[in-house]
């Protein structure tokens, strides 16, 4: 037996058997709902005033009209056509043009209970006729009713309204039209009206909540008949480009892992990192104030630009002009790349407009500009824009957004000096999320502070375990070896002093050596002389011995010859007998 696990993680739980969907074109919502709202069915969007219901409905219609070939009809009970058109005009939606093009009909119902009196039986045939007329005149496939309560509240005879509304929804459904009904009061209210069953193939809750003075919009798919869907609360935003839902947790961990490495722009740093960082990976740079985090980030972006890539610098704490000036002072010319159009600097305080809007803005720039490297400096600033959980979630999403697009991310984070916590933590808890982690540290010795750099973590890389000194020069950042000795790690002037001392010691040693060498040479010369003298004596002796030897031999021979001669004269015995005679006699 084979077990199949539904693939929910990637956030697109659509399968062959899934019901047909009508795409909304709203970023994130189609992902959460697995492709859109149920086509040919009804969806209830509920939320308090100002939660974005109408906008969602309008975007649904506009997307259908422009991109799906599905014209739409908007029945609005709340606003006039002109009001609605001017409200969404700021989002780049031209309702008047859509109407002129026959892609959209907006029918605004102004129901004023004060000038209406009910006498006897009636029905909502007028609404039906208007809707049918609109639907037929442009062949509409999508309908939005905004907001249903106004209709429900405008007339006193609830029994009639309820029956008519049910008839209307059936009428819409029978024609296979996709309808979105917006409602203010929540689902329970609709069950009280007895129409829940007719509007709840799909229920989406919009929420607008204020937490610690920060407002966050959230969206949740409460119910979706016949389809898998994301169940979480997803933050969403109303941006200048319309609604943006930001599903992070539904995003799968299925991004590609390129093996290509990109240079940090500093050879020695690349070496520390085992050859640069992987393209599309994320790097965290932490350190106290003034340790050079921004500089490293800027250097890496400049390196990307020099490779001919595009880079985005998201500055949370500095203006672009200040960043350019500061980086120029340490030999990193960002202005050149900005002028060349390959570097963009986006500066803004997240606290000014909230985490979600910040995310959406960055996402928009990323999509429009298409950078391969993004620096986020410093993520610490995000922590002022939400509670730690939200910040962590936002950072996770931000890094995920980049990773998903194969963008190399460099995030800096401030660690606070003197905090009780370990200095090797980030003020925002994402250290487990990032692929590599550069630690910058200030070290105070001899009345000065010096910077140390260390690779704390580098996933998938054989990285150095060495601490380096990090020096900012007008020619750019440099990495230097540090001295590790009995006094510990030496940096800055202590390192310079140590270098000088080492040079002196080396000089001294060389002098001693030279002296000993000279001494040895003298000794050698002496020895050689003595050896020569001895050898001369030896040779003289040898010559003497040789002379004596030859003289001796000559005498011996002469004496033997004399003896022979004498024997012959005396008739002596032969030599052998003579010897015996001599032996006896001798």
């Amino acid at each position: 037996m084979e077990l199949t696990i539904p693939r929910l993680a990637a956030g697109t739980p659509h399968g062959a058997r899934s019901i047909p969907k009508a795409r909304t074109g709203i970023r994130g919502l189609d992902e959460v709902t697995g492709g859109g709202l149920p086509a040919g069915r009804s969806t209830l969007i509920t939320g308090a005033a100002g939660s974005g219901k109408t906008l969602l409905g309008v975007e649904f219609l506009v997307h259908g009209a422009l991109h799906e070939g599905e014209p739409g009809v908007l029945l609005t009970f709340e606003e006039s056509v002109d009001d609605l058109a001017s409200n969404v005009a700021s989002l780049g939606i031209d309702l008047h043009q859509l109407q002129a093009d026959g892609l959209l009909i907006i029918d605004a119902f102004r129901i004023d209970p004060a000038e209406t009196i009910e006498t006897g039986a009636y029905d909502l045939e007028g609404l039906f006729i208007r809707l049918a007329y609109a639907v037929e005149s442009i062949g509409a496939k999508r309908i939005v009713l905004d907001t249903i309560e106004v209709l429900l509240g405008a007339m006193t005879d609830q029994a009639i309204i309820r029956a008519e509304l049910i008839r209307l929804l059936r009428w819409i459904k029978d024609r296979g039209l996709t309808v979105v009904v917006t409602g203010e009061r929540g689902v329970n209210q609709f069950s009280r009206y007895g129409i829940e069953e007719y509007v709840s193939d799909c229920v989406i809750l919009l929420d607008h909540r204020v937490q610690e003075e920060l407002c966050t919009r959230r969206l949740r798919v409460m119910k979706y008949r016949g389809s898998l869907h994301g169940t979480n609360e997803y933050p969403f935003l109303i941006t200048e480009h319309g609604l943006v839902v930001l599903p992070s947790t539904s995003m799968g961990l299925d991004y590609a892992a390129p093996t290509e490495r990109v240079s940090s722009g500093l050879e020695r740093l690349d070496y520390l990192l085992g050859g640069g960082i992987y393209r599309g990976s994320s790097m965290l740079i932490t350190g106290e104030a003034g340790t050079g985090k921004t500089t490293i980030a800027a250097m890496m972006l400049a390196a990307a630009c020099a490779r001919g890539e595009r880079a985005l610098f998201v500055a949370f704490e500095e203006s672009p002009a200040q960043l350019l000036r500061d980086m120029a002072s340490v030999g990193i010319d960002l202005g050149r790349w900005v002028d060349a159009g390959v570097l963009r600097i986006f500066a803004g305080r997240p606290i000014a407009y909230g985490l979600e809007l910040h995310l959406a803005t960055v996402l928009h720039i990323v999509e429009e500009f298409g950078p391969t490297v993004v620096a986020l400096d410093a993520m610490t600033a995000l922590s002022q824009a939400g509670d730690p959980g939200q910040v962590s979630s936002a950072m996770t999403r931000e890094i995920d957004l980049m990773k998903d697009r194969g963008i190399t991310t460099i995030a800096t984070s401030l660690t606070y000096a003197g905090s009780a916590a370990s200095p090797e933590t980030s003020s925002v808890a994402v250290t487990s999320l990032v692929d590599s982690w550069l630690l910058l540290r200030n070290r105070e010795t001899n009345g000065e502070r010096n910077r140390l750099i260390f690779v704390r973590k580098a996933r998938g890389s054989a990285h150095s375990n060495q601490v380096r000194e990090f020096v900012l020069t007008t020619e750019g950042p440099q990495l230097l070896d540090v001295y590790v000795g009995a006094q510990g790690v030496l940096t800055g002037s202590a390192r310079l002093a140590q270098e000088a001392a080492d040079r002196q010691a080396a000089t001294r040693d060389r002098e001693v050596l030279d002296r000993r060498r000279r001494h040895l040479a003298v000794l050698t010369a002496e020895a050689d002389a003595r050896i020569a003298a001895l050898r001369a004596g030896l040779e003289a002796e040898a010559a003497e011995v040789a002379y004596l030897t030859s003289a001796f031999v000559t005498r011996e021979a002469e004496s033997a010859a004399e003896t022979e001669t004498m024997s012959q004269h005396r008739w002596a015995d032969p030599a052998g007998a003579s010897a015996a005679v001599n032996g006896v006699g001798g």
Partner: protein
Amino acid sequence: MTTSGPADNSAGLNPPTAVPAELFALRLYIAGMSPKCVRAIDNLKHVCEEHLAGRYSIEVIDLLVAPQLASGDEIVAVPTLVRQLPQPIRRIIGDLSDTEKVLVGLQLRPRNGTR
């Protein structure tokens, strides 16, 4: 379908709101000849003859025939009677079976007079 009666200046039923010579321009929206709509037409004629004799005009609009006219007067419910004149516009929805309410709606009788 327009019915007009001769002007009758002597009626003066409700001096505070209706100047005696005032003309009532009424428009009744219906959707086909459904029982409700037929009743509404009958009831309206009856009320007008009785209270507005000679100074009213009725225009009956069948939305099944002219659906595009529905949005002009913000018609949702059917039948709906719209008092075009005198200003301001008033709407009365339903089959007009409650004459007292119709008179209040047309401001031919003060609201508290019905209670």
